[in-house]
């Protein structure tokens, strides 16, 4: 059944699904604009909160204002990409509970890509705008030379970070195949755990550093790669090579997540009658 459509036809259909999702999101234009503005304000409040602490104490864990802004920009840019593309996975458990997921299974297209494209979220742009703004602020404080090599590494880091976040979203969504309701896990692993990354990992205890490096490798989204761009000492890291590991780790986590999704899908029994 997978071969009903050619590859280009599939891409066309997926893009149509994403376009339909964007259109439905923007149907109430004023509501959408208010949402974008308030979302930006929320993130701005978060940045200002860190700014107030930095303004008073000058550094947090040895990281200055510019370095903290750079750390934040790496996080929010990766998050922006993921919030745009993978938002459909956030309330995936509702589709499982309502039995709506069954509809994606009878179409000759990938169920996962359908879930993702049906939930394409244009408001991720707010993250990206904020990410670019904090990147510019960071650069005004720092002296990073942006040649071809650095720019390429930066793109790979943002892409790798996005793959890590996307992989986590897929794994948490896949849990809904067994648990049916995963909303609190989504809150904990997708939203709250990200709060760790607003600050440099070196302020946390050893066990949390281990957790965020090896078990839920969120540290690779911004903390480790920031060492590369900021020429910070790697002596306190578990291994200096970690500053280059974001993209491979991202690919690894994403691959694992697809595998878990596949297992979950095979175990899936429709909730409907």
């Amino acid at each position: 059944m997978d071969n009903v459509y050619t590859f280009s036809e599939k891409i066309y259909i997926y893009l149509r699904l994403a376009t339909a999702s964007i259109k439905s999101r923007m149907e109430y234009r004023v509501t959408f604009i208010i949402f974008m503005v308030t979302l930006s304000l929320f993130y701005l409040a978060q940045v200002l909160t860190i700014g107030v602490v930095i303004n008073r104490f000058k550094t947090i864990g040895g990281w200055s204002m510019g370095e903290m802004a750079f750390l934040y920009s790496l996080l929010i840019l990766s998050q922006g990409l993921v919030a745009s593309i993978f938002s459909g996975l956030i309330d995936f458990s509702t589709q499982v509970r309502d039995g709506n997921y069954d509809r994606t299974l009878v179409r000759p297209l990938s169920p996962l890509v359908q879930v993702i494209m049906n939930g394409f979220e244009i408001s991720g742009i707010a993250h990206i705008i904020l990410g670019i703004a904090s990147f510019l602020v960071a650069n005004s404080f720092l002296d990073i030379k942006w040649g071809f090599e650095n720019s390429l590494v930066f793109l790979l880091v943002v892409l790798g970070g996005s793959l890590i976040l996307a992989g986590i979203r897929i794994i948490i969504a896949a849990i809904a195949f067994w648990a049916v309701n995963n909303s609190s896990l989504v809150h904990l692993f997708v939203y709250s755990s990200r709060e760790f990354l607003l600050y440099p990992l070196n302020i946390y205890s050893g066990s949390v550093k281990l957790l965020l490096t090896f078990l839920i490798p969120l540290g690779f989204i911004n903390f480790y790669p920031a060492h590369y761009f900021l020429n910070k000492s790697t002596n306190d890291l578990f291994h200096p090579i970690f500053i280059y590991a974001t993209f491979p780790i991202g690919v690894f986590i994403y691959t694992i997540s697809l595998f878990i999704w596949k297992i979950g899908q095979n175990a899936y029994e429709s909730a409907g009658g």
Partner: protein
Amino acid sequence: MIYILETQFKFISKAFQRSIAYKLEYYTGLANAFLYIFIFTSVWRTVANESPNSLGVWTGDSLVNYAILSTLIKVSYGRNEYFLINKIKSGDIAYDILKPYSIPLMYISDSLGVSVFQIFARAIPLLIFSIFFFGVVPEISIITLLQFIPVYLFSFIIFLSFGFLISSLAFFFTEVFSFMIFYGALVTLLSGAVIPISMFPETYLKMISWTPFPYLYYYPTSILIGVPLNMQYEELILRYLLQITIVSSIAYYLYSSGIRKMEFAGG
């Protein structure tokens, strides 16, 4: 009167039982609160060690205590905005206004039920856990406790009023999630839930103290810790009463205007 109290008690009990029903929700909620406490205690310990001269009236321990207690106060308040929002969106409120009880009272009772659950099932276990995990025990005298209780109750009333205000916006807008985000932004920055507002530069401090937000978490936590408030306790209480009057009046005005303008589609 007894009938009203009985009805409200049933609403409280129903909300409490509803909160108990979701076990996974409960444990992840605890983990979530602990995560925030952990992050902020780590931040404060770090900056207190790095820049002891910038602490001002604070010490490393008082900042750690602040992070723990402000989170516990926040956790103890049960959020239930969707209680009213869902009724407005679905049109179920049409049945409720026909019933012989007040919807605002029903909202308050539901919030109380969730909050009682939050205090016993989340705030107290988290406090015990924090004492063992972080090893910092705030010394709270009877006088401090007596000063704290009214302030805590007043801040809860402001919290309730804000929730009711946001819920009532559902009468006027198809989607109120944006307003919740906006409220979240103001709480993050100005309420003292994340950072004590005394960390702000002096010029902003006065302005912030006239908004209702620091009355949610900053002042109750500061009283518990014994940090100077820059005002007499009596003045603080008067300010609380002023903020309660303003926020609850706006909330009630929005609610009553919403009820008046409400129209139902369908037959």
